[in-house]
């Protein structure tokens, strides 16, 4: 028994929406970042689903690239968040407000 592709796309759309809402409403840099990762995973799911629908592997190859880029972003992002929380004792983005206008 196979699940129709529409279900996967709906799930991915839902994951992406949760990611967007979370990234825009949360205040902790690490949590924001986790929501963005959720968005990227939703995108991976879409690529794999479409790849299966079209019957070729282009989309699945793309997923590898997205994964690698996401990993690179994790490295850079966590390093920056770590530096900030060491100096400030917090990773809350509302406290990071020296630069304005």
């Amino acid at each position, binding site marked *: 028994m196979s699940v129709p592709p529409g279900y996967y*796309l709906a799930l991915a759309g839902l994951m*992406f929406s949760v*990611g967007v809402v979370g*990234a825009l409403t949360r205040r902790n*840099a690490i949590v*924001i*970042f986790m929501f*963005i990762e959720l*968005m*990227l995973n*939703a*995108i991976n799911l*879409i*690529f794999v*689903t*479409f790849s299966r*629908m*079209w019957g*070729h592997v*282009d*989309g699945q*190859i*793309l997923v590898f*690239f*997205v994964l690698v*880029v996401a990993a*690179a*972003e994790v490295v*850079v*992002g966590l*390093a*920056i*968040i770590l*530096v*900030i929380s060491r*100096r*400030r004792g917090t990773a809350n*983005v509302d406290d*990071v*407000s*020296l*630069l*304005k*206008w």
Partner: protein
Amino acid sequence: MDLAQAIAQPSVDWHALSPDIVLAAAACMVLIADLFLPEESKWLAMPLSAAGILGTLAAVVSLAGEHRTTLGGAVEIDTFALVFKGLFCVIGLIVLAMSFGYFRSGRYYQGEYYFLMLCSLLGGVVISSARELVTLFIALELISIPAIIMTALRKADVKSNEAALKFFLFSVLSTAVMLYGMSLVYGITGSTKLDEIRSSIASSADEPLVVLSVIFVVIGFAFKISAVPFHFWAPDTYEGAPSPVAAFLSTASKIGGFVGLLVLMFRAFPEVADTWRPAFAVLATLTMTVGNLIALRQQHIIRLLAYSGIAQSGYVLVTLALIDPSRPEANAQALESAIVYLVIYGIMDLGAFAAAVAFARKTGTYFLSDYAGLWRRSPVLATLMAGFLLSLAGTPPMAGAWAKLFVFAAAINSEVYWLAAVMGVNAVIAAWYYLAVVKRMFLDSPEVDEPIEVPYLLRATMGVAAFALLAVFIYPAFITSLADRSLL
């Protein structure tokens, strides 16, 4: 060719890839050399990087006039690609000249910095010839991720940390949004190659999914090119970042985003232009107007240049609002004016940043009030700065005037008169704040009379850039010969 043979003997046109390969090799060499250099001679990484960029430039020149495709159509070398590869090399050289004194005296991780800069530049060089979604995406990320680390290089400076965090969050968010759009495009068309996308998307122009996917891609790019209302990160990031890095972000990173956008809009989505053209018209109007109005009240030279850069993006966005494949002549003119604008913008914006860096190196200040009477403290610096600002304002006798005029003419030829009018009004607003700085430098009296010495390297670089802008104004055929229709 069957599969086994294709794996054993892949047909790769190495010559077409040579600029990218040379730059990648140079970046690796700088990183390795940095390991073995003792602390006091780390600065040698800079001449090494410059040699690498010159090598890349030589590879670009060796391809001049060619039209080649390789890697199954993912990479296409045409005049459009070569012009932007060359522009990125020139930007790299100017930024190197600006960074040299700054990073040598500050001792901020020089070797790592030059390595990261070359990597980011490599992203720009790759994106110029990328004609496929995966390659575009990777190239765009290759520009952004090293740039985030470069922004954060001043670890001990809280502002640098904050700038990097903002840049990072917005950059990652925009990547996710853009990828979502790309995934839908792939789903609709079943291909990641732009030419195939173009032919298969035309039949489904009215589907809401097509509109949605293109809108997502555009929003993702709008963050990268800091178009209003997705511009909030840019001024903060530029102010907090080391100032040569701010110059790099404002030119290489932004032009990289624009190249990606031009390639996508002119190559992949022109058949559905009717659905997204109004979005670009709105984006362009907002970006020009808001950028210029906020720039009016800036007191910090880097923030002024940041908002001026946002407004300049608006002028380029005008050309994207003119895309119309049913009128080939006007369509081609829009592309040509965009190329001319980006090339001239890259040089003049870097020049203004270089002047600000030279000023801050001796005085340690970025505030506009300290520029009062610069003419008496350093006539050379004041003249060069005034030249770059006049060019940004689009007034003669600098090349910026042609850049604005070409976009203006393209808008008139496409019969989008209201957008041309918005451009005209904005040019007047913009002239106000640029000329205010020029007036302050030449007519006001200085608080301190101490003369300012400009380092030789920086002086020579700025001199060449200013001369180039002047020469292009007198003889615009230099630059119009670069504007090429091969992308269409």
